């Protein structure tokens, strides 16, 4: 993308990669960074749209009136009968626990 004004600085990009928890090769980084800048250019169009101050945001297009709104759930216990089936999907399982590498901590003096 030639438009540098609308580009995401490399350090911001690297921070996002970190936040997204991706281990990436250089080529992949370059492709993704380039595509992001390209997309950002498409998004910039939004900034030019005049918006009335009182314009509400839309979170779901459809409006849920009282006739269409599902009721909240009653507080009734229904036991799941195939918990083992869920657990067998785990890459590492021991004594019923799902096992992952540790998160290190450090003691203060």
């Amino acid at each position: 993308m030639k438009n540098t004004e609308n580009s995401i600085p490399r350090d911001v990009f690297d921070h996002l990669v970190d936040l997204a928890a991706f281990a990436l090769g250089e080529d992949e980084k370059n492709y993704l960074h380039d595509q992001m800048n390209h997309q950002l250019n498409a998004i910039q169009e939004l900034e030019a749209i005049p918006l009335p101050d009182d314009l509400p945001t839309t979170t779901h297009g459809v409006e849920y009136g009282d006739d269409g709104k599902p009721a909240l759930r009653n507080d009734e216990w229904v036991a799941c009968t195939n918990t083992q089936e869920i657990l067998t999907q785990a890459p590492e399982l021991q004594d019923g626990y799902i096992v992952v590498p540790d998160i290190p901590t450090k003691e203060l003096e």
Partner: protein
Amino acid sequence: MTNLVNCSALELAEMVRARQISAEEILDETLTRIVEVDGRPGALDTAPAVDDEKKVHAFITHTEELARSQAQEVDAKIAKGEDAGLLAGVPFTVKDIFCVRGTPSTAASRILANFTAPYTATPVERLIAAGGVMLGKVNLDEFTYGSSSESSAFQPSPRNPWDLSKVPGGSSGGSAAAVAAGEGALSLGTDTAGSIRQPAAFCGVVGMKPTYGRVSRYGLIAFGSSLDCPGPIARNVRDAALMLQVIAGADRADATAATQAVPDYLREIERGVKGMRIGLSPDYFRITFPDPQSGEYVEQALPAHMQEAVWKAAELYRSMGAEIIENVPMPNTRFGIPVYFVISRVEAASNLHRFDGVKYGYRTKQAVADLNEMYRRSRGEGFGPQPKLRILMGMYVSAAQYSEQYYQRALKVRTLIRHDFENAFDPQGPYRLDALLTPTTPTTAFGMADVYGDSVMMQYADQLTVPANHAGVPGISIPAGFSSDGLPIGIQLLGPDFSEAQLLRVARAYEMATEKEEWREKKPSLLEGK
């Protein structure tokens, strides 16, 4: 004997209920068709083979055993004189973005390649409960992120049955291709920006995106949660209506599934369009996109053959007694894609957070020093470029310092897009439309690899379909002839919230009016003589 694979779902179910044919016979014939046309299913780490270009490759997973037992169950019910359901013996496929208990549910991604779902998505459950026979899980863009199905981690990706050098569209490409090629009468797809309607248009079949919330999303591996709609793909309008009948309705597992009663979609489907107001909007006859070289916005009229299909349909409707309202302004249509770039990415980035190698799916095989490295490697190796791109973009535009500039703004522009539709459909408003008639796509199916890799241009293929997702309104794409190079053209009908019955009726009227036209006789070259 009738060629069962070409029969409609309605015909099949009727024949099964009338004991003229068994569900197992239908299944056998459909499996034979699949063997003939589909070729090898998509798989991870496959080298391309020359033969791949001659087949459809709709599938990722065949569920023949499951299908067999479902067919036998239907036949057993029929034998006992029990009600075997609206879809008795009708073979269908499921886009592999839905969880189905006991089957691999991959989202066409390496990160879920080894995931076997422990539960079944509500719409799939309803299809099976209605007597449907599930043939398998069909291919799509990885996590639905694309408009060509090429980004699947499971290669070869599906091809367009009308021209195997073209894409079937996406992301429900496997669904549309399967239905077009007679591999099942129906397919369950999802539409977040046009992912049902666009591939339906590319493959010459019917695809409907229902109103947001009309069909439960429970079990649909989420992409853009505020936009995702499961919906039917079928070879004709009545089949789409039948399938919607089965899958629509409230679901206690989905707090956004609307509770309005589901009408009988078939009852009045053939009552025509007399007295209806059908609109045309100039904003749907052009697209606006950033030039890939300069970044400048270019406004471009749709190709003549795409426009003509719509005008021809409008004339037909007029001749059937509908009032055609021209020049309905839908000025915010062009913002659909930029808004989508923001909203869908924010939701997608969050929805894909759960794929972390902890409790299911892919975990890196490499030795790792700590948890963070496990995350980074698992996600780095497990996701393909499209999910990565969407996650990063979503993180960028929702980061605290940019959220106001992009995300909050996009939600407001979404309101403007919704207003366009409210204005057009308002019964007290200036246009009072029953339906808006538009092209489904800017072009017919493009060539394999022609657009793939350019995430922006790929996205603009959805420009005419995505506004309905923002607004939540229903839309349907139906076949409307062919381009001079023999590729299907789709036209789209959009309607107000929960107007599916009406849209299906308008769509069916077109189908009836063009029943005798020559192009209706055409079959995909792949199926010549079959």
